[in-house]
């Protein structure tokens, strides 16, 4: 049921809307846990890890982005054979078209 609810949210909302919803959800969860009043607080170690979590996630995402783009850049295929083949095809085309009466 939850999954289909998620799907219908996705269908109804713009990407921006989905991001804002997601951030609102995570943000309020984080705020509730990190800024809870003394009676409802998690044990100290958890709270210490929780507070800087948003920054950690941002930095992690930044590193992931750099690594991914870097990897994709490095593995971007260079189509040497395609270029060479195209040159051959161009010559063949010009010859044949001239034979058929094309005036370039």
């Amino acid at each position, binding site marked *: 049921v939850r999954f289909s609810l998620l799907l219908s949210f996705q269908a109804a909302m713009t990407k921006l809307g989905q991001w804002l919803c997601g951030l609102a959800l995570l943000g309020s969860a984080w705020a509730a846990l990190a800024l809870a009043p003394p009676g409802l607080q998690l044990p100290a170690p958890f709270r210490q890890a929780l507070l800087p979590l948003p920054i950690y996630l941002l930095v992690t995402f930044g590193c992931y982005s750099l690594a991914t783009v870097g990897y994709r850049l490095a593995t*971007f295929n260079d189509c040497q054979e395609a270029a060479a083949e*195209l040159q051959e095809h161009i010559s063949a085309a010009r010859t044949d078209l001239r034979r058929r009466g094309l005036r370039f």
Partner: protein
Amino acid sequence: MAAGSADKFSVLLPTYNERENLPLVVWLLARTFQESGNNYEIIIIDDGSPDGTQEIAEQLEKIYGSDKILLRPRARKLGLGTAYIHGMKHATGNFIVIMDADLSHHPKFIPEFIRKQKEGNFDIVSGTRYKGNGGVYGWDLKRKLISRGANFLTQVLLRPGASDLTGSFRLYRKEVLQKLMDKCVSKGYVFQMEMIVRARQLGFTIGEVPISFVDRVYGESKLGGNEIVSFLKGLLTLFATT
């Protein structure tokens, strides 16, 4: 649905100052379709090119026949989206191929698009430079970086389900392209992106085929700051409205 032999492929070629390349593209297309045995037509939409593109298109029409080469020119440069709409009005095929007329796209990939389309009964088959053995020739490191960076941003923001959003070498079912043209409003690179995004919204299926993109003009037309800015504006608009 009748057997494969009843399929006809209409290739839309919007041209502007392609006097040099047009005969070569048409020759390659004709040869490709003859070898694969598919029924085809090529619709040339020239936007009043001053270099004589229309004149050479007329010669090609005489050589290949007016059933295979359809000339549907326009008076002046009116943009890609309207060129597709204009071309589609005259298309008698049930599939439409869109591609660049400057030889950056090689017609040899079209039979692979057709095969892929049959394999998955896809509504759209998109050529991708970013997957499999797809790739690019003639780009320096900076251009490749911009390309990969922009694509990454697009994937993160739009989660489009296709690896190459700004590519313009695609095969569409005719009805699908007609529906999409009605809905799309952007220009330039963003137009090609919007087509894929809207296609997903409407529930159309998209298959991908790796292609090689041979850029022979990059040296002359650099990717300027203006284009990057308009790409980003368009991307954010799609992000906020789809």
